[in-house]
């Protein structure tokens, strides 16, 4: 890479130039590196959330157990839910979108590369901020004028690991007034509310970025209805984020004002309305559910056609069904609140609206089945996960429809039946889909294929473990086992299934260890993937693996859906796909061309400022928590100075500065890889 030294620069620092090592990662604006960082960070939080779940399961494996104190239990289920939703599934979705969206639409990067880096760093520091509650947060005994016991955080009681109790304990939904200043004094719930605020900011920035990218950066000929389904679902998710995040931002600001500045939004003592919190939270929270699942649906819609060797059945129906799910998703929030005393008319309306969601979802499921039907199915690891997704998601979807029947929902509310339902859609659905994507696109990251034997071991262990864990929760819930309850008495007979559930949870943990081992070894010693390991259909596979820094050596031009497939295959008279005679030559040609750009390629330059700006934000938020003290005020000031300085530097940094990758600078060792006869037609 050559720096453009001749251009006069009005910057404070020299532009960072490192292309390897830690600085290249800290200053990168490359969507692929950002995607990889999102992925590793999210996986780290997945491990933390998983450990929290295992601790909960140890406690529940035995009736009247005394493994965790009540306070520690409350904190762990709160942090488990918060982590898995905001720090694992959402950022893994962001990782896929970052890495793949530009590749899928034939772009070199996103519309705003530095903003992209900013949203990654804000997410990263937001996650650290949220988890720092384990070190700095406090959960004090509730101050209740009426002597009503609030949360049990400070109660302690029998059990161990009580030090974990000093962290958020109001549930991932933070219901009021329990999570308000009266019943959750101490700073832990402030860490929760402000941490989510930071994470929301990160998602908001990336949603704007992705929407502009999709609208303005598509390759020539890549019309909207030629985009791969994953690109479509990313767009839909970006719109969901765009319209739901401001609502949770307002709600979290209200909580923060209640807790820090004495407003009375949710305090019944002063006339506030706790149900308002539920409305605002679920008005965000239900679209959030689709924010979690739609990326996985997009991934599965990419994986199933490839391994069924058929085009996606009803492409446009799948796309429109995804958009319809998102649209309807804004009109069903109160089905989370059937037990909260909303009027019968509202209950009926929201129940019916909820049922209608089953229609677009059903369209998708049948289209996936139609894709597989009559296909020549290859049961590779990504395909296993994708099929697992369809099966498990369908179970979760069906139990979901049962919640739309209001009287039935009253029986199920706050029982393990609900826990079973949303784990079937979020674990059996989203997580299986995300693993399908990891196995499928691993070659794009590394140029290697993941070990299939270990991959299938992972799948079956996870599949069995998952069903052992969550299927019995249906029966436990229908037997009346209540959610979020620390212990249950031996007489009620819930113990046997709970033992099974805990065994299942540890089986899942074992499967994740297999996955980690596979990832680690395949990165080092995996089989080389070549350019097209799966006989794929979409244009991200027209560039070599691992993806070159510039994505496409020459800007692709697309003339139809599944363009890459049609480069390799013709149809015979009966409409069957026949591989072209020169398909292998075309692939070799693509590989050679992809590694040897014929002209300099302009890439956005790295920058320090996204990182610096993001550092300031959690500092400001720490300051808000301790704003009554001198230190708190100082922190707000320091954070603001850091962020504003970075903003000024950002503004001064020349926009159009680009460092071209010269053709002759391309890795020389790659040049000799594939020397094929180039016939330009």
């Amino acid at each position, binding site marked *: 890479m050559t720096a453009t030294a001749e251009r006069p620069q009005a910057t404070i620092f020299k532009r960072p130039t490192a292309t390897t090592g830690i600085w290249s990662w800290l200053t990168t604006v490359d969507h692929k590196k950002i995607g990889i960082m999102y992925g590793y960070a999210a996986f780290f939080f997945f491990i933390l959330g998983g450990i929290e779940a295992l601790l909960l399961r140890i406690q529940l494996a035995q009736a009247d157990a005394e493994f965790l104190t009540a306070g520690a239990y409350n904190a762990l289920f709160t942090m488990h839910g918060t982590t898995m939703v905001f720090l694992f599934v959402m950022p893994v979705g962001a990782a896929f979108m970052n890495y793949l969206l530009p590749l899928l639409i034939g772009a070199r990067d996103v*519309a*705003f590369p530095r903003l992209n880096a900013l949203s990654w760093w804000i997410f990263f520091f937001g996650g650290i901020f949220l988890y720092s509650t384990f070190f700095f947060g406090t959960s004090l005994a509730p101050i209740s004028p009426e002597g009503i016991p609030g949360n049990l955080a400070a109660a302690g009681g029998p059990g161990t690991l009580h030090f974990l109790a000093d962290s958020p304990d109001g549930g991932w939904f933070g219901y009021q007034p329990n999570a308000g200043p009266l019943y959750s004094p101490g700073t832990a719930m402030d860490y929760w509310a402000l941490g989510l605020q930071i994470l929301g900011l990160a998602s908001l920035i990336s949603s704007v970025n992705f929407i502009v990218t999709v609208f303005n950066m598509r390759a020539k000929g890549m019309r909207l209805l030629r985009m791969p389904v994953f690109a479509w679902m990313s767009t839909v998710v970006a719109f969901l984020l765009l319209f739901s995040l401001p609502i949770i931002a*307002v709600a979290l600001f209200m909580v923060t*004002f209640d807790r820090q500045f*004495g407003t009375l939004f949710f305090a019944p003592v*002063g006339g506030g309305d706790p149900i308002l919190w539920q409305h605002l939270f679920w008005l965000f929270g239900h679209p959030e559910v689709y924010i979690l699942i739609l990326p996985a649906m997009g991934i599965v819609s990419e994986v199933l056609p490839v391994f069924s060797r058929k085009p996606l059945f009803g492409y446009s129906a799948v796309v429109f069904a995804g958009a319809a799910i998102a649209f309807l998703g804004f009109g069903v929030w109160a089905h989370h609140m059937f037990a909260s005393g909303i009027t019968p008319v509202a209950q009926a309306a929201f129940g019916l609206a909820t049922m209608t969601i089953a229609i677009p979802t059903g369209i998708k499921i049948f289209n996936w089945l139609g894709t597989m039907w009559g296909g020549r199915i290859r049961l590779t690891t990504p395909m296993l996960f994708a099929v697992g997704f369809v099966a498990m998601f369908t179970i979760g979807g069906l139990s979901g429809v049962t919640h739309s029947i209001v009287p039935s929902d009253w029986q199920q509310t706050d029982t393990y039946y609900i826990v079973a339902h949303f784990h079937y859609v979020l674990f059996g659905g989203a997580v299986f889909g995300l693993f399908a994507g990891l196995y499928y696109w691993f070659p794009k990251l590394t140029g290697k294929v993941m070990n299939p034997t270990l991959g299938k071991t992972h799948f079956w262990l996870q599949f069995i473990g998952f069903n052992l864990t969550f299927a019995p929760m249906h029966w436990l819930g229908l037997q009346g086992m209540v959610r979020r309850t620390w212990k249950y008495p031996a007489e009620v007979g819930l113990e046997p299934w709970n033992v099974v559930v805990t065994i299942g949870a540890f089986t899942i943990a074992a499967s994740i260890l297999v996955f980690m081992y596979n990832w680690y070894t395949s990165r080092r010693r995996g089989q080389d993937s070549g350019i097209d390991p799966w006989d794929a259909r979409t244009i991200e596979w027209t560039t070599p693996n691992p993806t070159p820094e510039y994505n496409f050596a020459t800007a692709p031009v697309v*003339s139809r859906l599944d363009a890459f497939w049609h480069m390799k295959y013709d149809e015979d008279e009966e409409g069957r796909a026949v591989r072209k005679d020169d398909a292998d030559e075309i692939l070799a040609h693509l590989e050679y061309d992809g590694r040897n750009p014929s002209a300099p390629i302009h890439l956005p330059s790295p920058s320090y400022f996204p990182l610096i700006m993001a550092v300031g934000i959690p500092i400001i938020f720490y300051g808000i928590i301790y704003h009554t003290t001198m230190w708190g005020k100082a922190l707000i000031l320091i954070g603001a100075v850091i962020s504003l300085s970075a903003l000024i530097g950002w503004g001064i940094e020349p926009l159009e500065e680009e460092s071209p990758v010269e053709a002759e600078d391309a890795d020389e060792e790659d040049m000799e890889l594939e020397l094929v006869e180039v016939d330009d037609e």
Partner: protein
Amino acid sequence: MSDIAHEAPVAHHEEHESTGIDNRKLGMWIFLSSEFLFFGALITNYLLYSNRAGFEGIYPAAIYDIPFTSVSSFVLLMSSLTMVLAHNALSRGDQDGTRTWLFATAALGSVFLAGQVFEFTEFIVEYDMTLATNPAASAFYVLTGFHGTHVAIGVIMLLSLWGISRRQGSLSERHGMNLELVGLYWHFVDIIWIVIFTVVYLLSVPPG
């Protein structure tokens, strides 16, 4: 090779399938669509509490000074006009005019903010209505406070543009685009105020 032809790279903007709107401008539009929901939620909160009976303390709707707020609303509306004039001057290449109208916009925005500070002070000192008086007061202060914060950020952006223009003698095309972005943002803040002034000030009545 017909499905993905590989062409020699051409200039950036021509090689994309695109809306034809500048990335930054499209980004600002999309961001503002999100902001509408932000204020929508805040206004809804206010409407929910503004005339709910039975709160202790005074209701915001009982103490609005409508003539005063009408004047400050008028000032803010006029700042949209000066913003348009600034944009117009820039597109004519009139750098002096641009600077003048930018400064006028920032000044009008500051007058509006001063009016809000006066209003809050009056409510707190004379009527003893604070954030913590009752939920209606909480909703009022948080809503108008967030709007004021948006205005303040807009004023800072306007003054930055004005400063850049003074230092460099002109606004380049790059900054010209920024002027359009700041303009979009500024008009948004004004439009939200029109809604707030109508719904929160003119149409809201205290209970009873």
